[in-house]
């Protein structure tokens, strides 16, 4: 939880203003907003990389101001946007091993976790490969694996879908779902409005270092004024619904996911064609 958090960089740039944000265990939250809105700064205060200039960040009800980054990183795992900022080892296996070494666990446990994570991320075949010989998408996957293997309670992703192809995005979606079912809290910083609309139930919208909206995604991301004020574009599905509305087809607000809209429309069109048949008789 964040209470009245302000943050200013040493050059005087104010990045966060009066942030009050509560995230419960098991929540799945997107943080969105234009560039420079303060999204990345906000997540960096969660594990102590940045310390608020005012206000308090609480983790499990405890003030984190006197806790070390090493200590907080066991609970909060942040996966940064650029995977190349993390990777340095000779092999994929060593890269995962580096993340596990700082945890207070036995060698056997480290070995077992490495095997599990390599299998989960389909990296068995790349075990001995240099991380620098992986493709962009695979590097990103490895950076994610090197945090997920530490099993933190809170997983924070900075732009996980950036530069990923469809297969890699599907992998991330499956991973997120599996972590959610394990009871993990997931926070995602993203510009990908379609991804958020489809998969993330809660959205926090930021502008100029402040939170301007926080609520169910289907309300936040369909609010035309909010979206316009944060320099974003309405999700395609919402634009489609508005276009349909203009020709007299009203899809209820609670239907906002792609598949649900398709099903609603096919049902609607079935009735419509029936009406036409009945009318022609």
């Amino acid at each position, binding site marked *: 939880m964040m209470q009245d958090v302000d943050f200013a960089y*040493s*050059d005087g740039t104010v990045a966060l203003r009066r942030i009050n944000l509560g995230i419960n265990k098991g929540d799945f939250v997107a943080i969105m907003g234009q560039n420079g809105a303060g999204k990345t700064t906000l997540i*960096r205060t969660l*594990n102590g*990389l940045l310390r608020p200039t005012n206000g308090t960040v609480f983790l499990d009800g405890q003030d984190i101001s006197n806790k070390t*980054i*090493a200590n907080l*990183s*066991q609970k*909060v*795992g*942040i*996966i*940064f946007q*650029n995977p*190349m*900022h*993390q*990777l*340095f080892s000779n092999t994929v296996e060593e890269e995962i091993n*580096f*993340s596990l*070494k*700082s*945890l207070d666990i036995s060698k056997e446990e480290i070995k077992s976790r490495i095997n599990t994570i390599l299998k989960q991320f389909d990296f068995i075949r790349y075990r001995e490969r240099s991380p*620098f010989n992986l493709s962009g998408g695979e590097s990103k996957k490895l950076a994610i694996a*090197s*945090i997920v293997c*530490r099993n933190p309670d809170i997983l924070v992703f900075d732009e996980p879908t950036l530069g990923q192809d469809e297969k890699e995005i599907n992998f991330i979606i499956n991973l997120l779902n599996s972590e959610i079912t394990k009871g993990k809290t997931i926070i995602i910083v993203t510009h990908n409005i379609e991804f958020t609309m489809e998969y993330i139930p809660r959205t926090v919208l930021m502008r100029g270092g402040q939170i301007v909206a926080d609520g169910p995604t289907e309300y936040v991301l369909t609010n035309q004024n909010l979206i316009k004020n944060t320099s974003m574009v309405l999700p395609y599905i919402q634009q489609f619904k508005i276009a349909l509305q203009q020709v007299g087809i009203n899809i209820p607000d609670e239907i906002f996911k792609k598949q649900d809209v398709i099903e609603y429309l096919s049902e609607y069109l079935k009735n419509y064609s029936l009406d036409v048949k009945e009318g022609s008789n």
Partner: protein
Amino acid sequence: MSLEFLNAFKFLKRDTFLHNLDPRSKLLFALIYTVGALLFTEIIPLTFLFISLIPIILSGRLLNKWIKSLRGLSFLYILIIILNTLFIPENGFSFAIAMVLRISIMVSAFSVFFLTVDPNDLALSLISMKVPYEFAFSFSLAFRFVPTISIEAQNIIDAQQSRGYEMKKSGIINQIKNLFPLLVPLIIGSIKRAFNVAEALESRAFGSNKDRTFYFSIKYSYKDWIFTIYLLVMLFLLIFIRIEFNSMPSWFSWGFPL
């Protein structure tokens, strides 16, 4: 850990006497102060030289940045003082203080240079000194990337700390080993960036024409000449003091009794 002290070397555009000087006169300033610092191993002349920097720094309104750059070297200062005091049998502490002053003078001189010289002007001044354009451009480009690399280094530190990396480890071997998670991504990232920049330049026909024109020009003004004369007089004075050091008053070679 923060690499904010690197910002103390980042150019900041301002309208001051020092900022408006020609980059060549500021390069001469940095070189003469470096030579001056290297001429002496005694505390008193180095202290004078150090003090003579202060009005120049004040004229560029750089006091805070300068203090930050010196503060960033505090670890090195402590190391110099401890090692010299322990391993130099006679007047080790005095020598250590002199070395701290020497480094401070050199760092301050170059810090003033980097803080007040626009990378574009640097390339122009090198060209005016007959340095080939390719070399001048590469030098100014390297100069321009210092803040970018410092931001990247900070991101790498943050990313590694997020997976349990600890900055401080005991033992020299462990400390050296501990640098790998930071240096490998930084070096690889820098090499990749260098290739990208090279490709981007080539795709814009860099070097296709030997005789090129320049949008901006630099000029050695009367202020630069005054500053240059001051620097040259100071250099001759320093060389004279060095040669005639034995005939100088005895307090010139004062040191701590350690």
